[in-house]
């Protein structure tokens, strides 16, 4: 049994909220730099170069990469040998978000009620997904999610007869409908299978996988590559102003599903695909 004080969780989440909003992961930096070289449209290249300059300014002057510093989505995997002490774990997570968004000069974008819409003033609560896993480690991923792209995300409850072609069409439909609204070049997270909520959660989680890492399942890997090529043939381009780089990666997760169903979720993320991971 390992004991962890929840104040450790607060401290790490605070730092990760600030880090994720100012620095992209190395795989994202690399793929965006490559996109700036490969883009065919002169305006598209100019936009991608501005995004490079933007990330440089963000890191040097500590100005968030995007003003939409997101709703804080947090994946927390706790080893079953861990005993949390010192308070309520969920409250400690929210305290980390509160401190991170206040001390990091991040935007407070959360409203208390979806209809009454009064801002909570500290960007809490987070959206927390916890899993109990073997071992005595705690793995935390903080993924602030902007809503320009979140709003363009979709769930499709397909029929088994729709098959792989139906799944591909659903993904391409979601991406094309998103177009310029989702701040391309985008990263496309997909969940196939499970239930209504499981496929959505997989699509979100897929966005945290490095963009240069393909699925280990051969047919899924092929699908990821084929869809990326098709999306980039759409012409949407950087900023939606035309070009050959519309998406940076398609990351797909799958799960067993019911004999009657074929759920597909598409979670679209803009080029500011933020996630910071630590293991305690």
């Amino acid at each position, binding site marked *: 049994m390992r004991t962890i004080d929840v104040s450790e969780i607060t401290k790490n989440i605070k730092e990760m909220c600030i880090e994720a909003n100012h620095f992209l992961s190395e795989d994202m930096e690399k793929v965006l730099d490559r996109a700036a070289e490969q883009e*065919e*449209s002169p*305006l598209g290249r100019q*936009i991608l170069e*501005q*995004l490079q*300059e*933007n*990330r440089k*300014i*963000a890191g040097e*002057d*500590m*100005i*968030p*990469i*995007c*003003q*939409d*510093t997101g709703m804080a989505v947090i994946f927390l995997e706790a080893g079953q040998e861990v005993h949390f002490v010192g308070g309520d774990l969920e409250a400690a997570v929210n305290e980390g978000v509160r401190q991170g968004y206040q001390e990091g*000069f*991040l*935007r*407070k*974008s959360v409203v208390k009620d979806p209809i009454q*819409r009064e*801002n909570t*003033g500290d960007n809490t609560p987070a959206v927390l997904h916890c899993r109990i896993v073997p071992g005595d480690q705690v793995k935390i991923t903080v993924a602030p999610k*902007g809503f*320009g792209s979140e*709003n363009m995300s979709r769930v499709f409850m397909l029929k088994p007869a729709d098959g792989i072609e139906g799944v591909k069409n659903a993904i391409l439909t979601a991406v094309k409908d998103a*177009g*310029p*609204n989702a*701040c391309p070049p985008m990263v496309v997270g997909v969940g196939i299978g499970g239930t209504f909520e499981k496929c959505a959660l997989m699509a979100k989680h897929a966005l945290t996988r490095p963009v240069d890492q393909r699925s280990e399942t051969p047919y899924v890997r092929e699908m990821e590559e084929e869809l990326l090529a*098709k999306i980039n*043939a*759409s*012409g*949407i*381009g950087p*900023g*939606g*102003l*035309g*070009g*050959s780089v519309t998406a940076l990666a398609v990351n797909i997760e799958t799960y067993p599903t019911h004999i009657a169903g074929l759920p597909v979720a598409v979670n679209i993320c*803009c*080029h*500011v695909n933020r996630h910071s991971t630590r293991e305690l």
Partner: protein
Amino acid sequence: MDKYISVPLSDEDARSLRAGDYVYLTGTIYTARDAAHKRMQETLEAGGKLPVDMKNNVIYYMGPSPAREGRPIGSAGPTTASRMDKYAPALLDLGLKGMIGKGKRSQAVKDAIVRNGAVYFAAVGGAGALLSKAIVKSEVIAYDDLGTEAIRRLEVENFPVIVVNDCQGNDLYETAIRAYNREG
């Protein structure tokens, strides 16, 4: 083509802009996004006076992150314009000349742009740190209680935007995407 234009936007300048023009704006613009638009709409419905005279002004759909000490503003990139589509035609009919945002507009907004000789510009989404460098002054002038969604008066210098919808009904999103479509 690159153009340097002063804001507020004269009728003449607005009518001269064409989809695809790369424009640097210098002068005064105002921010407003979802909550401020809703409140302005309610004010108009109640027969009240708007906190900003729309005539020849430009609205930037933007809610900034908080400014660090010594800076006028935090990160300051555009938000998705389509959420303001419901409100924009009424403001355009009151004289609003320009809007800055990102993403496609509805046909009703495009029609109101043509009808009023106005223009819709896109700023690069997700470039809020870079764009903040073109903002030299920021002041909340209305709806302070809305926090990041308050109406701000911004002084901008060479603020970079691209004309998407012009007064002739052109739409850069449609033409540019078609030009690079390779689906065959």
